[in-house]
Every structure is written in structure tokens, then in C-alpha cells.
């Protein structure tokens, strides 16, 4: 059954977009995802993937970590990027990489070739939006799993389970960022550096999973809102959003699904 919600008081109910496990995407959905990112990377204006990548670290540095804005800010971030990708390829959604069960980087993000060319999900160019290239800046993404000795290795089932046991938002946020930081540090390379990480498309599969974790936890804890003093705080995105505006994913037009199977109707 399609999931529907009312996006605004004066609008008709709309079907929500479904975010899926990366391993559940069919060939066409993977092609669409790669095409959306590739076409977005080719743009030189604020619709570009690199504009969005630039929000996180170099050069804008708007991201929030290790504080109560961590989950809300990244939900807003994914929301705006997903809309930009959908403007390139209608219907495309951000897939998640379930690092609570996966022991490696998923195939769609690691195979070197796809669609008859270089796989943009495996390696992407780094062109900092609105800034001339500086000496020492990377020009393309890289990964180096396990580059930090004795860094925890996936899957992070225990860390996921610990977070899900939290009975309040602050504890959940703190515990899920253990899993979050683990993944960044384990992947290494571009993903291991906060200021560059978002240039790697794998970043968004990782953060979609973190957002999914929050969504699952929220479903089990309906009253588990962030601290009252940040609910109306304006978060730096373009355009800005409040924390309150991102609490309900159905109001943002998406939901998470384990599986989806659709067949043509009778018309």
C-alpha cells in the first residue's frame, strides 16, 4: 500500500518517496542514482552536487557534529540534496548503507565501472564550489578502509543495538554518533576527514542510514523529541530549516522501506 501524508494544509495528500537499502535497488534505480549525481556534478550553480558537498566542510562548514543538532542538521541536509537530485532525475531517492549488518562497502559504491564508464559512486571529482583550487587540496575522492590502526570494523550491530535501547533523544543521538564516527574513521581517506567527507557519494548512503536509524528510533519513541531549547533553532542550510521542521519525515515527503514491489495496474 502506498504511504501517503499531507505535506501542507492547503495541498492534497501526496505519495511519499521511498528510500531503500542500496542492495535492494534494481539496475534501473542504480543507473538513475548514478545519472542524477553525474548530472548534478556537471552543473556550475547551486544545483550542483558540489555545492551540497561544500555545505558540510570545505568551504562552508555548516555541518553539526557531537551536539544535539547532529541528527536534525543532517536530515535537513539529505532532504535538500535529494530534492536537487530529483530535479535531475525524477523519482530518485537516497539509498542507505546498513552498516549495522554490512561488513564492507557495498558493491554499487565500490565497483570501478558502471553504465559503460567510471562509476561515480566509487570515485568522484572534488571541485570546491565557489573557490579556486588550492595547493594541497584533493582533486578526487579516495578511501582507505582500516587506515587507522585498531579502528573498529563493521558490521556495527552492537553499536546500533545500544543506540536503539536509548530512552531519550540525547542518549540516542550520542550513541548513534558512535556508529557514525566508526564508519567515517573505518572508511578513511576522504570519508575520514570531516571537512572533505561529503564529496564522496558514500557519505550520503552512510548518513541516510543514520537518518533511518533516527526514524526507527522515533517510531518507537513518539515523545522522544530533541531538547526544547533547540526545536525552533534555525539550522544553516540553503534555505535554512528549524529543528522542528525536520522531526517528521513524512512531512518531508519520504519514508524508509525494507522492500517495495510494484506491478502495473489495470489502466
Amino acid at each position, binding site marked *: 500500500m502506498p504511504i501517503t501524508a499531507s505535506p501542507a494544509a492547503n495541498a492534497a495528500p501526496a505519495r511519499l518517496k521511498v528510500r531503500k537499502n542500496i542492495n535492494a535497488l534494481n539496475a534501473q534505480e542504480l543507473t538513475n542514482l548514478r545519472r542524477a549525481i553525474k548530472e548534478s556534478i556537471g552543473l556550475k550553480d547551486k544545483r550542483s552536487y558540489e555545492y551540497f558537498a561544500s555545505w558540510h566542510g570545505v568551504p562552508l562548514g555548516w555541518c553539526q557534529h557531537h551536539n544535539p543538532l547532529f541528527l536534525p542538521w543532517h536530515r535537513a541536509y539529505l532532504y535538500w540534496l535529494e530534492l536537487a537530485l530529483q530535479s535531475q532525475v525524477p523519482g530518485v531517492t537516497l539509498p542507505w548503507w546498513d552498516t549495522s549488518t554490512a561488513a564492507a562497502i557495498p558493491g554499487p559504491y565500490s565497483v570501478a565501472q558502471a553504465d559503460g564508464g567510471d562509476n561515480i559512486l566509487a570515485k568522484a571529482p572534488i571541485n570546491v564550489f565557489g573557490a579556486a583550487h*588550492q595547493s594541497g587540496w584533493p582533486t578526487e575522492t579516495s578511501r*582507505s578502509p582500516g587506515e587507522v*590502526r585498531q579502528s573498529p570494523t563493521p558490521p556495527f550491530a552492537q553499536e546500533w543495538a545500544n543506540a536503539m535501547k536509548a530512552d531519550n533523544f540525547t542518549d540516542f543521538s550520542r550513541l548513534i554518533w558512535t556508529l*557514525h*564516527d566508526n564508519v567515517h574513521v573505518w572508511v578513511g581517506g576522504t570519508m*575520514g576527514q*570531516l*571537512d572533505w567527507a561529503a564529496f564522496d557519494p558514500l557519505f550520503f548512503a552512510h548518513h541516510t542510514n543514520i537518518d533511518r536509524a533516527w526514524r526507527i528510533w522515533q517510531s518507537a519513541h513518539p515523545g522522544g523529541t530533541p531538547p526544547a531549547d533547540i526545536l525552533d533553532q534555525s539550522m544553516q542550510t540553503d534555505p535554512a530549516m528549524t529543528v522542528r521542521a525536520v522531526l517528521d519525515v513524512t512531512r518531508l515527503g519520504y519514508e524508509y522501506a525494507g522492500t517495495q514491489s510494484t506491478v502495473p495496474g489495470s489502466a
Partner: protein
Amino acid sequence: MQRWTSQALALSRNNWKRADLEFEGVEHDGASFVMHVFLNNPDADDTTPHTAEQRYAGYLTVFAHGDCWGDVGHCDIPEPVSAFDRRPPHSLIPFDATLEITEAISALPEDTSEFTVTVLAFNKHDDETGVLRFKELTLLTYE
């Protein structure tokens, strides 16, 4: 690998149900790192097993910013320029990292009245200093 051992922390055996170590004011302006924590094991090194017998208490990872890429002063944390300065906090403001150690601390001998914390901190450069930088360490117990 950087090894750091704390001064002794006082341990009360009152009726607490949970114990946390709080690393306050952790700096995150360098390379990302992982820190493994041992209790009363100042000789722990990178060959020490992460086991209860070695009084291993757990780990924390810190996803950090990496080297400064901006102009001179970019990574300096500024003070507000006025009472009307409503700019968001600087992204490099240190944060507090919490490690729950209930199980590890409960496993210490009954007559333990104080204990030290040894941290082994690793980054991709395998630096021996400057990996973990923080202001102070606190043991918090909750009834």
C-alpha cells in the same frame, strides 16, 4: 600510537547503577582517531587484548576535521565580537565524549577505592603525541 594515563580517580562503591567516563573538551581539529580505554592497566599497549582480564573498558572514535584548509586564523575559535553576535558556534569548539564503563568498573576488585585510566589513541599517521587532546576527565556515577 599515543598512550596517556590519568591520575587516580576516586571510586565510591555506593549504590550507583551506571558509570560514565566523560572526556571533557575533546579537540577535533586534527586527524580522526580511535581511543581504547583501560582501567588500572598503565602498561597496556597496542598488543594488549581488549578483554575483561586486561580491564578493557571500551572505545570511542572521533571523526575529526583534518588539517586546516583555510587561511591563517581559519581554525582559531573566535570570541563573540559583541553581545549581538548571533553567528553559529565555531565548528572546532571542543566537545565532551562519554564512555559508559559500568561493566568494566564493576569488574574491578571489591576493595578498589581509586583507579587510573589509560588511553591508547591511534590516528592514520600513527602519531605518538597530540592525537588525543582534552581538558579533563571525570567519572560520573548514577544511582
